[in-house]
């Protein structure tokens, strides 16, 4: 019994620690790097797409413009990097966007470091280097543990996994959304979003 309590206290300590570190990152703006107990370092994304589902009309322009832009004109909802979950009957429409997680499970799972952080474009988005990807779909599985459906998506035709890269800083879904459901939140300090701050959606 005591042992149990001990363990729980220790865990609590860890969690508090993580939170404290998080606050330092967001408030202090000194660090762009979040460090986790396992030693993994990941620069925070400087942009993330947020969705207000209460306005969504379910037109799926976001999905189409994403697929059209990012897959050389192959228009399809299965190649779109954000997904619209729709309950047609009850009229509940939810755009599911990539959170550009603070501690990205997909990035950690990649065995060939195809998943990288896009420093070059300055978005610090979690992106997949198409040349390096081997199509093992481990990132898909990793994301799926928390967020369903998985945000990285497998393109069977090219045998590569693709994921949201914020369209090099100008997300087309945000630009084209006719109802203003989607918006791009930016911060030069980095945004503490996605996993582990939220662990499901």
């Amino acid at each position, binding site marked *: 019994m005591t042992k149990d309590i001990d363990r729980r206290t220790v865990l609590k300590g860890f969690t508090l620690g993580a939170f404290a570190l998080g606050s330092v990152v967001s408030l202090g703006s000194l660090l762009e790097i979040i460090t986790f107990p396992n030693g993994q370092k990941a620069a925070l994304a400087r942009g993330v797409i947020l969705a207000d589902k209460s306005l969504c009309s379910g037109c799926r322009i976001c999905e189409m413009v994403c697929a059209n832009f990012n897959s050389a*004109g*192959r*228009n399809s909802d299965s190649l779109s990097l954000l997904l619209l979950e*729709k309950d047609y009957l009850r*009229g509940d429409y939810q755009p599911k966007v990539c959170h550009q997680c603070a501690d990205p499970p997909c990035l950690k799972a990649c065995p060939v470091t195809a998943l990288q952080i896009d420093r070059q474009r300055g978005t610090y988005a979690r992106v997949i280097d198409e040349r390096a990807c081997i199509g093992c779909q481990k990132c898909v599985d990793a994301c799926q543990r928390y967020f369903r459906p998985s945000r990285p998506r497998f393109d069977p035709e090219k045998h590569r996994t693709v994921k949201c890269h914020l369209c090099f800083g100008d997300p087309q879904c945000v630009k084209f959304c006719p109802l203003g459901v989607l918006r791009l939140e930016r911060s030069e300090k980095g945004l503490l979003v996605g996993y582990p701050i939220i662990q499901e959606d």
Partner: protein
Amino acid sequence: MTPKGGWVGKILRVDLTTGKVSVTSTFDYVPKFLGGRGLGAKICWDEVPPEVGAFDPENRLILATGPLQGTLAPTSGRFTVLGKAPQTAPTESFCRSGVGGHFAPELKWAGFDALIIQGKAPKPVYLWISDQRAEILDATRLWGLDTYQAQQMIWKLHGWKTRVMVIGRAGENRSRIACILTDTGDASGQGGFGGVMGSKNLKAIAVRGTGSVPVARPKALMEITHHIHKLFARKPSHSDPYQPEEKNFKYNIWGGGYGRGSLSLLPGELLDLCQDPSSGYSQIPDGCFACPVSCRSRVKGPDITPGVAFCAQSYMYLESMVHQPEKGYSKITWQAAKLGDLLGINAYELMAIVPWLSDCYREKLITEEETGLPLNEIGSWNFASKLLHKIANREGLGDLLAEGGQRAAAKLGGKAEKLSFMYYPRAGNFGGYREHWVYLGGFPTGYAIPSLALMWVLDNRDALVSHSYIAMLWGAAFTIGQNALTAVPEKIFPALKTAMKVAYGSEEAAEFLHADGKNLNWKWAAPVVKRYHEHSLLKDSYILCDVLFPYLFNANSADHAGDPSLESRIYSAVTGIEMSLEESYGQGEMLCTLERALAVRDGRTRKDDILHDLYFEKEDAGGRKYIREDLERAKSEYYRLMGWDVNSGIPTAAILERLGLKEVTAGLQKRGLPEVKS
């Protein structure tokens, strides 16, 4: 030349009698016949001769998409249902019906550009299409379910991403006014193709695809799409999803007087509830696939059927607003509309049947006892639910009404039939479709406009005049602070001039009255209607939405000039085929002649292109009349412009040759249609 984009290349053919599924190439038909309505017309020409009745197994139910479906192209969620239509009265004939929603892209992603269904299944079945495969599955347990329940069952089986075209009780009972519904409110209504599905024992078509549609010039498509978004819509202001963030911006649909979600609920009980956040009722704009405007609203609440309803569908039972004026658009109005959807009855037809029954009751031609309907309380829930169930189940008078208003009226004969002429304007053998703005402002009020009368006599269903041409008139009315019911024609001419020049080639086309104000000016009727037909055929063949296209009136600019080239530019971007505006009009003309040939083969001639006497007797709100001789002259001019024989209205061999429709010449000659030989 094979298009580089837009098509996935296969047409699926399902024979329900034998259970055989086969595939043919789309490129047997396109790009020559463009797609959608043109593609379907060609298939009908090849496969549905006049001897085949609408409910015969040999009739084809064709679901045709166009090159734009399943892509980013604005309003590319639409597709067309075609075949021999049971609703056309008294002679069943070729007809088309457009559907919005999200079904079309799913069909393309599943790998099929079109679907041809023939034969008759021995027992109730549904069709399951997914990624290049099609299966005919048992639907015994779906038979008899309403359209929502059947879809829910299919979603349980095949996943929520599956889109379903489904019929209700009305379709199962082969009603001639049954619709095919998808999701909560998008339906193929006109034509009565729900009954065709029922006659084939086909309850539903379920589709799910994970493939993709190639676009030839993705960057160009994004540019034109962004341009069109800017023309038609703005993001909403944060406090109200219905208001554009840019204050004075007008959503450019129907001349700018309507906007996002604007044709669902009218003022009244239900709208008040939706605007009260604590009530539990709500309405939010709801978009068809890839549409920037979202002209519909989805409505939900604790004790109403949730879903979308739009225009005719949500206004199906406005009698309830007369019955209970203090409530305005009430829960009853909404529930009646949704009951029509659940049972799968064409709301547009009900909008003629209900007032016609009311007229008959007033004239003491029908009684409550013999009909079993509470006719003295038309407008109540009791009446609506009894009437709709009777129609869907074909009980008593409902059996007659399920044949459609015009056929029912003809059966009753005498005065009842005469009363129906007000709702079914076209005389001759190819009527059966409800009045739809024969006048600006509607019949019997409003103003006579020559082009509208000519559109009406020539169409093979209701002329879709509330879109394209009339949208310009409405737009002009809105710019002077009036609307369709109040605008005086002379006053709207100035606002129309530039727009008319761009759309129809002359500023003069705006003046449909002579300067004396006493007589209609028929001079421009024929050329305007020819161009209107070209616009319609093109829009329905690329498949874009009627509400946005053709774009002829800009409510946000000073000269109001539209841009009819948008459609062909989208087409070029998606398919990679260069298509100039002039070229596209030529294609429209060709498809219009093909549709005419289909009607002609079913027996249509010049004498079927006529309105009932009533429309030449009544004076409009300005004291003017349609004069029969004027209309006949305009018809002659129209036939001449189209290269059809003036005496019979039948396309000549010369024009068919020029349009590259040789097989049509041969087909018509085989049936001894002498005019074609000339």
